[in-house]
């Protein structure tokens, strides 16, 4: 296994249902994400990109194929091991933010550190530091209900970074935001990218995708195109156009 490759998938499949009702959400995906790389996954709704992200982060189990994170095979891990992996190696950012309503911004951000067994003071210090980095130091004591959508997403990004993960997986991070808020979030991702963080972002937003090192297009559960930000097409654009048409 190449040490530079942080995430690797081979023949990854996720299927729901049986017989005629079989749905192939992810169908034979091969993927390598290098450390420090920002990868954007694009495609129409229901093409399987969120499912792929959930499989990569161990939120769901694949029906077949192999999956590695940081050199460790994760598709065969038990629930406890997966939980530990999510705790230490993965940070999630969801479209719906998924903040705990009864916790303030700083309490939400410190939660992953507390779950990882960090001392409360250390967890709190880190939370305040991260909220400062995302520009929400002044809002640390606010409940999510008192924050705008963009601010909530920034809290969620801070939370994803709480345990200094190897990779941040973001599922439509700007999907619920207006343009200005989306731009703020985008800037944050750029900062993360520049700092060397590995990012896998599922998105519809071309602005987000344009900031990525590589953009993968998905259709019906499979990759149909791969585009480097240099403009090089590594996949078959013609196929993608035909399917899309």
């Amino acid at each position, binding site marked *: 296994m190449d040490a530079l490759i942080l995430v690797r998938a081979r023949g990854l499949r996720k299927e729901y249902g049986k017989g005629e009702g079989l749905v192939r959400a992810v169908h034979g995906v091969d993927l390598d994400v290098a450390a420090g790389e920002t990868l954007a996954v694009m495609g129409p709704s229901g093409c399987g990109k*969120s*499912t792929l992200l*959930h499989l990569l*982060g161990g*939120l*769901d*189990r694949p029906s077949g194929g192999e999956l590695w994170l940081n050199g460790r095979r994760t598709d065969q891990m038990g*629930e*406890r091991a997966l*939980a*530990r992996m*999510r*705790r*230490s190696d993965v940070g*999630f950012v*969801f*479209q*719906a933010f*998924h903040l*705990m*309503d*009864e*916790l303030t911004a700083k*309490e939400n951000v*410190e*939660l*992953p550190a*507390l*779950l*990882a*067994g960090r001392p*409360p003071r250390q*967890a*709190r210090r880190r939370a305040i530091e991260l909220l400062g980095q995302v520009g929400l130091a002044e809002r640390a004591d606010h*409940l999510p*209900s008192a924050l705008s959508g963009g601010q909530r997403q920034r809290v969620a990004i801070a*939370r994803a970074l709480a*345990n200094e993960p190897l990779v941040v997986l973001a599922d439509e991070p700007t999907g619920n935001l207006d343009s200005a808020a989306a731009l703020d979030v985008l800037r944050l991702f750029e900062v993360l990218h520049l700092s060397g963080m590995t990012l896998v972002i599922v998105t519809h937003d071309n602005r987000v995708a344009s900031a990525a090192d590589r953009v993968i297009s998905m259709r019906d559960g499979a990759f149909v195109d791969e585009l480097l930000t240099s403009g090089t097409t590594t996949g078959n654009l013609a196929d993608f156009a035909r399917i899309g048409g």
Partner: protein
Amino acid sequence: MGKLLLVWRLTTKDLRHRPGEAVLLLLAIATAATALTLGMALHGATNNPYAATRAATNGPDVVVTEIPGGPGNPGPVNAAALTRLDHAPGVVAHSGPYPVTWALVRARGLTAGAEIDGRSSAPSSVDQPKLTSGSWVRPGGAVVEGGFARALGLAIGDRITLGRVSFRVVGIAVTAAIPNYPGVCFLGCEMPGSLGNYNPGLIWLTQTDAERVAALSAEPVAYFADLKLSDPAQANNFANAYDANTSPRAPFLLSWQSIRNEDATTISNDQLVLITGSWLLGLLALASVAVLVGGRMAGQTRRVGLVKAVGGTPGLVATVFLFEHVLLALCAAGAGLLAGWLTAPLLTGPGAGLVGAPGPPPLGTSAIGLVTAMALGVAVIATFVPAIRAARISTVSALGDAVRTPRRRAWVVAFSARLPVPLLLGLRLAARRPRRLVLSALSVAITASGIVAVLAVHATDASPGFLAPNNPQNLQLDQVTSVISAMLIILAVVNAILIAWAMALDARHSSALARALGATPRQVGTALSVAQIFPALAGALLGIPGGIGLYDAAKHGGSTAVPPVSWLGAMVLGTVLVVAVLTVIPARIGARRPVAEILQAETA
């Protein structure tokens, strides 16, 4: 008319859509209604048997006793003093005075206290005990009161020892002149030494034999006489008039009504336990219904929105919600009344101390009204708040299935940050819904009270100073308390599952999120148990004074032994353990669903 039809259709469709929940609601309320019906049905259940026994034995209207002992009456009593009442105004017949003494009785390996009534071999004109088997007293032959004989397991031909003298049981009889075992001392007892530890039963001997037992045991001799009045209904007034004389040498008089009431003690104790139990069950049913209705409300928000979106008024929404539960409560009241009426004869048997049957359970309009009111009260109280909430929620929020924001307890969040992960998550979960927490604690406290009451019965049975072997009052009380406790436990288990399920559903999102952030399924599952353990512990601890108070109230008098600490400790630990285990079921089921699926469902 159209609106009524709409309410009816919406109600019946919803009931058909959720038959399981409807059955649970029905069961919870019907259980409480059954217990209350039983309690009401026991009222006056012994009146008929006592009247039959009084008629069969030509029972006295007034019993006169002259008992030695005490500072003002130390020496032997003068039997002739009783005869002065034979010709008192209103007295139309009399019998006695009979010598009465007390001794230890040993029979079939048991030792008990006995009150020995010395009688003539010839039948007496007033209070001739009715033989239920065998023959009347003769020299060397004893007749044992029915309830006492059953407690000691005696039959005709058995040998018993009274003091130092041996007798053969020649008969078993009942009387209306002296309350049944163990209430004999209601008329007064003088039992020095170790005899004083006993509640005696009644044994008839010949006068000569009775006096011989007293002489050999050096026990005091008292005298009892029986009077018949021209107007039996005036017996209380007659007795009270003479009892107003407080001279120590004055005889003590008791009316037949007082004896009848004492005979009803067993039943009235049962009645008190059943009525108290029914209110406890009612409270538990209230908790069940509140949890179920709250859960249904949470699950039906979108439906409420749909009804409103197509023109349903807030009033209509509230009416449908209330009507559905009122309908169920009425069915439950009917089922409870029927079940109580059918099972009442199992508890209203007169026992071996009286003859005759109690007759059909007396269920009047007031009893039916009370049971129905209780059932309706439970349904309305538990449904009112959710119904109003459903009426007031905006159509848009309802269509969006808006979830109530959980409560924030800043100090819990701060404190729990220092705890291990399961405790951290558990405490925060518990603090999210304080009302559910109170319901949970209340439910456990009610059940624990029932269990502690049963333990108190056993502890009192085992405690010194209340010796009455196979005391029928305690045995029946124990039985009734156990039945009530079993009902409480069943309802509490249902409640615990419902509450745990409601909590698991409510915590679905936060649990999934915690798992996404790195909590293991076991940590999340344990957290759900922890969230339930706090109220369970509080409830179990509250149940200790509750149960002792309950038993104390049911006994209305006498000493109540507090169950040993080890029993109470086992009860508390057992309760907490059972609740924890019950919570594991919904937690395990919840943990099976992939995190991504839950998080996506929540945002769909």
